């Protein structure tokens, strides 16, 4: 009996430590970025996504066991000078940073390394977009003007306010904080091919991008999502910002 209680406590402890991943079915999805640059839907294989963004406490635990990713050791190639700059020390958060706030000021390289340590990877844009299209009741709420407005309202909030802890309301899959807390890295941020240049329809543009054509954006009314694409495609892999975090996924 005592053993069973002990075992239960152990298992409970393990469950509390391991991140919660939620399965998503995948399928075809009408992305704002058509797969062929014209109108082909995205095809997404089933995957599991972290229910919440990675927190400061979780990232600190990672840095403690992977000190090459501490801010005093990481090379500039992998993270810019603002990497983890809100933390008090290389291996400490300090009083101004909450353990359960999403970690921000992390680069693409750093986010990738963290996910690898969790036997996971960063989501592709399509995986992130399909997950974030859901609201509390629907898997695709994007046609609802109220949903769009709620996302836009968040963009409009001043970024100087302290970040809330993770654990906002769950969407229909059980995923939290996809909209309304932080921006999130995707693995193929450098495949979105949306830049000021690619919107120019002139000869210089055709030479700049090899292939059928630079991607055209669809669903122009869905600029809540398009703004996110524009932001992600403008980033460099070593960039960090105070509103940019990440979560991981696993293929199923």
């Amino acid at each position, binding site marked *: 009996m005592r053993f069973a209680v002990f075992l239960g406590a152990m298992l409970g402890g393990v469950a509390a430590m391991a991140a919660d991943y939620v399965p998503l079915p995948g399928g075809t999805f009408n992305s704002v970025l058509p*797969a*062929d*640059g014209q109108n*082909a839907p995205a095809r997404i294989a089933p995957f599991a996504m972290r229910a919440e963004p990675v927190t400061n406490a979780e990232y600190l635990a990672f840095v403690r066991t992977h000190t090459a990713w501490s801010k005093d050791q990481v*090379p*500039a*190639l*992998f993270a810019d000078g603002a990497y983890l700059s809100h933390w008090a020390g290389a291996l400490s958060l300090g009083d101004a940073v909450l353990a359960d706030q999403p970690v921000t000021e992390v680069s*693409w*390289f750093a986010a990738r390394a963290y996910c690898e340590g969790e036997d996971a990877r960063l989501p592709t844009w399509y995986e992130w977009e399909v997950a974030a299209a859901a609201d509390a009741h629907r898997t695709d709420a994007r046609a609802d003007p109220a949903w769009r407005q709620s996302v836009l309202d968040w963009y409009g909030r001043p970024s100087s306010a302290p970040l809330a802890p993770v654990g906002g309301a769950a969407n229909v899959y059980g995923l939290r904080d996809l909209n309304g807390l932080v921006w999130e890295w995707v*693995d*193929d941020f*450098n*495949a*979105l*091919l949306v830049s000021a240049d690619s919107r120019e329809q002139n000869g210089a543009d*055709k*030479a*700049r*991008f*090899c*292939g*059928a*054509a*630079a*991607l055209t954006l669809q669903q122009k009314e869905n600029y809540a999502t398009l703004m996110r694409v524009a932001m992600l*495609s403008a980033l*460099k*892999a070593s960039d960090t910002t105070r509103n940019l975090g990440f979560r991981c996924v696993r293929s199923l």
Partner: protein
Amino acid sequence: MKRWFLCLLLLVFASGAFGGNALPGDSVYQFNAPLVDQDGHAWHWADRRGHVQIVSMFYTSCTMVCPLIVDTMKITAQAAAEKNDARLGLLLVSFDLARDTAGVLHGYALRRGLSPAQWTLARADVDDTRKIAAMLGLQYRQLPDGDFNHSSELVLLDAEGRIVARTNVIGRVDAEFVHAVRKALAEK
């Protein structure tokens, strides 16, 4: 005696500075990964430290801008250095892992007259290919039909692996970029 000792000390310090150089933090050789070249030889990304290189990414079955990227690298190298100057490396990394085997890269190099003394056509695994593009600030995306959309840019790496210049002028020589290549070769 004292002066002699000072000279020795200087010599030790100087050789230390030149011999055991710490790699700059922003060097692309902070990253390392195995690649395979057009002759099937395995090499590592950071093996290139010590060479000035013009780098771009491409795929051999591309019929539109990619041949122009290769041509632009060729004429840029000719404008900046003597023919087949071994100090200047020309590196093309493919992102078409399904089709661009070492054999296909070899055939392409032969067909385009890309001398192995100066040109390396290479492939890495899928994950490292994405990382190499990220480091170089290049974009690519596979389309459903197997083709790619990608940025057309040349990146100049100095001997320490720092990105010292880049150009998206394709199809002709970018004089500023050529100047940067010469400067990197002179500093080497």
